[in-house]
């Protein structure tokens, strides 16, 4: 407790509201800052600074092979943006990203809502069913994409085997290597993988909904669908809006799933896969940064919207 005395005196000088209150407040503030600052430094150094640095990199002509010799500040240019915006691949990729993000978001929330409603009333084994439905969300993405890839394999995958054998398909469908099925497939995969998240959120919201409202409606003669339409749905809507925003943010920037399923081929090259490609395969750091910056800009807008609408009292 020794250093606290001098600290509190200094802090007391800053706080004009009275020495006793100021002392405690000042000590509290010092402890708080001491406890939080390691994390703040870590996040600043490894997340915030790198993001800012991306801005600098986007205006530089920097190639991976010259990385060890070139200075890290220099060769400034606007060419990266001219190249990126000038190439048709970028715009096509932006459209793909939007389709993927919208489709994946809608599909996963839709299925999550269906699941939450179906599991709303209790039954024997509900806990087990609920846990099982969460598995796609927690399973390692590499294992999940690998199994899906094998399942959808045209030579010996089970889906094509059943499709040609039982459903009478004329020939196996190359799910992951043909337009436009590949994009649909990755959206379905995104639905499979992310619906548990929506399911969890909506289940929690449904549990918080007061039962009396629905009982009253039922007593007044409303049918189950009417109860859903007029009582449950309006209560879920704000949650669904927040979910849609969150899922869109994450799906829009999703890299792992598409990279592992198709490698970005067959019309599924989303921007995040393009960023990786420019960085690692082509070694064009500047162009990769410029495209990452476009992603960041979109993201910044979305995060601001999220903060405004959903997270204000969350953070305070």
């Amino acid at each position, binding site marked *: 407790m020794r250093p606290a005395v001098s600290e509190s005196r200094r802090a007391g000088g800053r706080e004009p509201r009275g020495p006793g209150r100021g002392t405690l407040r000042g000590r509290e503030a010092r402890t708080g800052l001491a*406890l939080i600052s*390691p*994390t703040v430094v870590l996040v600043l150094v*490894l997340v915030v600074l790198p993001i800012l640095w991306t801005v600098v990199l986007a205006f530089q002509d920097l190639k991976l092979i010259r990385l060890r010799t070139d200075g890290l500040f220099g060769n400034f240019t606007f060419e990266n943006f001219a190249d990126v915006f000038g190439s048709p691949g970028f715009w096509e990729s932006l459209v793909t990203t939007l389709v993927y993000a919208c489709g994946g978001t809608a599909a996963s929330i839709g299925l999550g809502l269906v699941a939450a409603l179906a599991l709303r009333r209790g039954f024997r084994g509900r806990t087990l069913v609920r846990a099982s439905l969460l*598995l796609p969300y927690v399973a*390692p993405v590499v294992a999940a994409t*690998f199994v899906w890839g094998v399942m959808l394999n045209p030579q010996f995958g089970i889906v094509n085997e059943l499709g040609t054998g039982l459903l009478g398909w004329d020939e196996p469908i190359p799910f992951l290597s043909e337009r436009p099925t590949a994009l649909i497939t990755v959206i379905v995969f995104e639905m499979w993988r992310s619906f548990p998240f929506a399911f969890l959120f909506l289940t929690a919201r449904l549990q918080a909904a007061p039962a009396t409202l629905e009982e009253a409606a039922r007593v007044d003669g409303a*049918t189950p669908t009417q109860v859903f339409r007029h009582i449950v749905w309006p209560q879920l809507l704000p949650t669904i809006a927040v979910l849609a925003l969150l899922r869109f943010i994450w799906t829009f920037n999703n890299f792992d799933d598409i990279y592992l399923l198709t490698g970005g081929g067959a019309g599924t090259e989303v921007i995040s896969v393009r960023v990786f490609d420019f960085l690692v395969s082509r070694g064009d750091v500047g162009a990769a940064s410029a495209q990452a910056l476009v992603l960041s800009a979109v993201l910044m807008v979305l995060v601001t919207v999220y903060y405004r609408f959903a*997270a204000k009292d969350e953070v305070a």
Partner: protein
Amino acid sequence: MTGIATVPAESSATSGTQRSGSPAGRRWSRTTVETRVLGVLRWVVIAGLLLFTLFPFYYMVLLSFRDLSSLLQDPGRLWPTLSELTVSTYRDVLAPTESGGQGFLRFMATSGLVAIGTVAVTLAFAVLGSYALARLRFPGHRRISVMFLAVYLFPSILLAVPLFIFFTRVGLRGALPALVLVYVSQTVAVAIYMLRNYFQTVPVSIEEAAAVDGADRFTIMRRITLPLAMPAILSNALFVFMIAWNEFLFALLFLVEDRSRWTVSLGLSQLAGSIEIPTTVLMAGSVILTVPIVVLFLATERLLTGGLTAGAEKG
């Protein structure tokens, strides 16, 4: 009410059995129909959902025990026969490369090391930070919370370029501690967020009582707050472990050049394209990758789902 006039036709069948005849009775029957249809539909949906979510996992386990040649002969069979069951796939995938295997045992050691390291460092940062955010008032409190939220929402692909360049430049890109540090920076925001929510549910009055009895801040933390928060800290540790174990992008960026440093995720993704390695052997690899996570998850499901949806009620 106009609703009575528009009772749908299909309700006449049930109203016939009810014989009440009054408008109130007919309206009740529409409810009956809907309730019955939805009651059946509900079980169909639950069965369908279970099939949809669990089938890939079943298929994974099934293929990992099947012999490759019998799989190619009869790919449509969904249950194994006793004669073709084999565990040689697991032997192949686990054995080190020197003895003809794929070296997954080594990958597992790397993954485990990285994940445990990430958990330890993240918790050290997060316990202190979340306590401060939950309990103490200090300048910049709000700004820091907003920053953590933004970090939580920012996806890793945006960090890929600068971190790749930075660690290449300083020559630490292949080093496991560098990867651990990156993972910590990715998980610490979520961890703080989850722990802070928990700390806020612990009554302050307990700590105040201890303070009145003369305990200082750190004694209070060590003797009172931390033991109370142990369940949350534990579930947090498991959550961070799962993130680090599953992570793919940074493992790919940092470790891909040196096979001896591959994690399980990276190893499986790199070997998946190869023609020489039988699919069933790699399937055994995915089972090995998935099982620790599923076991951890099922053991802590209740704790974790509480954390994942924290704040959903407010939405």
